[in-house]
Structure formats: structure tokens, C-alpha cells
């Protein structure tokens, strides 16, 4: 809990802040250059979703451990309208779609672990982890 970093998301400017802080944290955890780009992009997409669909929320970044595996944990939380059909939201649009829409399937592809808890009218919490290989 001590290393947890909370980034409030209220506007598009916060998207940049969230991904830059995420990148810094991932760098400390020892991730490679290309992994840093993946993580920063995934955070960008998740934070963007918050702005687009809920207006405001927060991104919580923290290092995580599992045995001697090190990684980064990203939680993107909002109290927005929620997602009615999570499985539909996670459907892959493939590269031809060009990233339109929720960006969730894309973000899911970049992470090792990905979970969405959402309730219509209550909000959404996305929890993702990426491990250093």
C-alpha cells in the first residue's frame, strides 16, 4: 500500500499525467523499453475511457509481487454509467478498426492479467497486471 500512486482523472490532461507516472513506476520495477511503451499506452486507454464515459475517476498504480516475479498493477476506477455487457466490450475489433470505441480489448491484449467489474448505474473498475518477464 505504501508504494501506491493515485492519479485523479478529471480531464484529458490527467490522461497524460497517469501514463507518465505509470511509465516511471514501471521503469522502477525494471521493465524493458518496449514494455514501458505498452504499459503507458494501456494506461492511456484506460484513463481515456474514464474521461470519455464517466467524466471523472481515478487510476491507481502500484508495484506488485508474486514469489520473485515483479510487476505493475493498474486499477482504473470510476462511478460512471457502467458497462452493460462486459464481454461485448471486450470483443476484439482487430487492427482494421483502428482503435475506435472503448479501447478495452486493446488494453487487455497488452496486459498479462485483466479484470473488469462493472455495474450499470454504479461504475466500473478495471484491474490489470503486467509482469516483468
Amino acid at each position, binding site marked *: 500500500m505504501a508504494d501506491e500512486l493515485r492519479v485523479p482523472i478529471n480531464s484529458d490532461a490527467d490522461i497524460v499525467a497517469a501514463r507518465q507516472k505509470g511509465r516511471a513506476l514501471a521503469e522502477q520495477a525494471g521493465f524493458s523499453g*518496449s514494455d514501458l511503451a505498452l504499459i503507458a499506452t494501456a494506461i492511456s486507454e484506460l484513463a481515456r475511457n474514464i474521461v470519455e464515459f464517466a467524466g471523472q475517476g481515478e487510476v491507481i498504480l502500484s508495484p506488485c509481487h508474486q514469489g*520473485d516475479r515483479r510487476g505493475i498493477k493498474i486499477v482504473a476506477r470510476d462511478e460512471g454509467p457502467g458497462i452493460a455487457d462486459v464481454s461485448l466490450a471486450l470483443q476484439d475489433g482487430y*487492427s482494421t478498426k483502428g482503435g475506435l470505441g472503448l479501447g478495452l480489448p486493446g488494453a487487455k491484449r497488452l496486459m498479462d492479467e485483466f479484470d473488469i467489474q462493472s455495474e450499470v448505474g454504479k461504475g466500473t473498475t478495471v484491474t490489470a497486471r503486467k509482469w516483468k*518477464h
Partner: protein
Amino acid sequence: MAKARVRSEKLSHEQSRRELVRHFRDAREKLRRQWITEMTAKGLLAGLTEQEVQTESSTIYDTFVSCLETGQFDAAQAYAGRMAQRAVLRGMTPEQILGGMLTLRDVYGRSLFEQYRADVPGLTSALGVYEAVANKILAIVAMAFVDEREKTLRQQQEAIRELSTPVLQLREGLIILPIIGLIDTQRARQLTEQLLRAIRANRARVAVLDITGVPAVDSKVANHLLQTVEAARLMGARVIVTGLSSEIAQTVVTIGVDLSRIMTLSDLQSGIDEADRLLGYKVTRGAAEQAKVQ
């Protein structure tokens, strides 16, 4: 040692601990020398200078006793990590590292038997404190060594993977990547990164990926190829894939992967010719022949 044994369990444990620490500190030189003698006899100190033996054995001995005294193992952990790094670098074997620690444990243990002799309750109490610490330290040392070895192995594997796919610059703006062997997700990713960096370093406008030496291409690998081609395009480079046998091509298309977005040619030479065309060179077979004759 013939003290009245009217003490509670808790005190007994603490008392034992303090006695042990005192015992090991008092017997330091004797036990440390004994330890070195036994390690030498077992051949565990090969390759170490006399000074190293003295310094290291002192540090290890003192760290051991410190853990016994404080119940804290941070110092031992840190030291084990550094020791493992040095050991792996110098090619020391697990037998040497663990053998050395086990010998120390035996030397300590036997000294306790000598110390307590007929005082069985005292010995039992002492062993109770001692064994837990000794075993924990052994585990720490063993794991540090294992971790260090795995880390080194991973780095070596990474280096081998990179070496096994050399990037050749054929001429200005043209690079070739001959890929040999099976491609799994991890390798595909490593290849992509290598290709992209090579495009930047060589300012390549065309890259020929020759997969003649890749025995099997399934839909996963084909998808990786598609992504690689797309990533290269984002960097302004065209990718030509050569060496995709018609059988593999058919299989891949049947599985449902759309290869039409990749330019594929059957053999490397055709790929190079096409690359030259894309780069604006004139390709005349006759001229190439003439150049060779000269």
C-alpha cells in the same frame, strides 16, 4: 553450565540464544579456522586466494552470529545476494557454495555438542535456537545462488537469440533478416524489436524477412508477421517476406489469416530483386552476371 534450571520456557529460549551468541563469539577464531581446514580438505576453496578465504570466512561467520543475536536476516540476505553475484561471475559451483555453508553448520553443531556434553536440556535448548537460524541462512544462500544463476541464464539466452538472427545490410536502404528455427511468441516479439531497431539504425526503407529456415508457421506466427509488417510500415519501411513455401501459405490461408497485406515471394533472391525495384534500383540479371565476372 551447571546452573539451576528453574526458568520459564520463554526465558530459557532467550537465555539459550544469548549463551549461544557468547559461545560462538568466544570460540570465533578456533571455529573459523576449523571451518577453513575442513573446507580445504574437501577441496571447496579451489580458486580462492588466501586473503579472500580469510575475509569471506570472517564476514560469513560474523553475519551468522549476528543473525543469531538479532533474529534479523536482512544483512544475511544482502550479503548472500552479493556473494552469489561474485560466485556466479567466477564460475563457482553450487557444491562449493552450499558445501561451504553446510560445513560451517556442522562445525557449529559439533562445537555445541562439545560445549554442552552431558547437559542434555541445555543442548536441546541451544539446538532449538541454533537450528532454526542455521537452516534459514542456508535457505537464503541457496536461493540467492539459484536466483543469480537464473538471471545469468536469461541474459545469455537473450544474447543467443539476438545473435541467431543477424541483421544484414545489403545496400543503402535495404536490410535482410534471415530467420532460422521455430518462432514462438517470445521470439516473434524479440525479432520484431530487432527489426524495428535495425530499420532505425540502418535507415532502411525495405526489409526482407526470409523465413525459409522456419520449419513451421501456424496462424499465431502468421499474425505475428502481420503485426511486424505493420509496425515496420509505421516506421516507413516496406517488408517483403520470402521463403514462405506454398504448403505453408495454403495452410495459413486455410486457417483464416489474411496474408494479402504482406508482400510474399518464394525465395530470397526474388525478394531482393523486388526490394531493389522498390528502392529505385534497376534490376538487370545480365549486369549482375557481368559484375561477378569482373
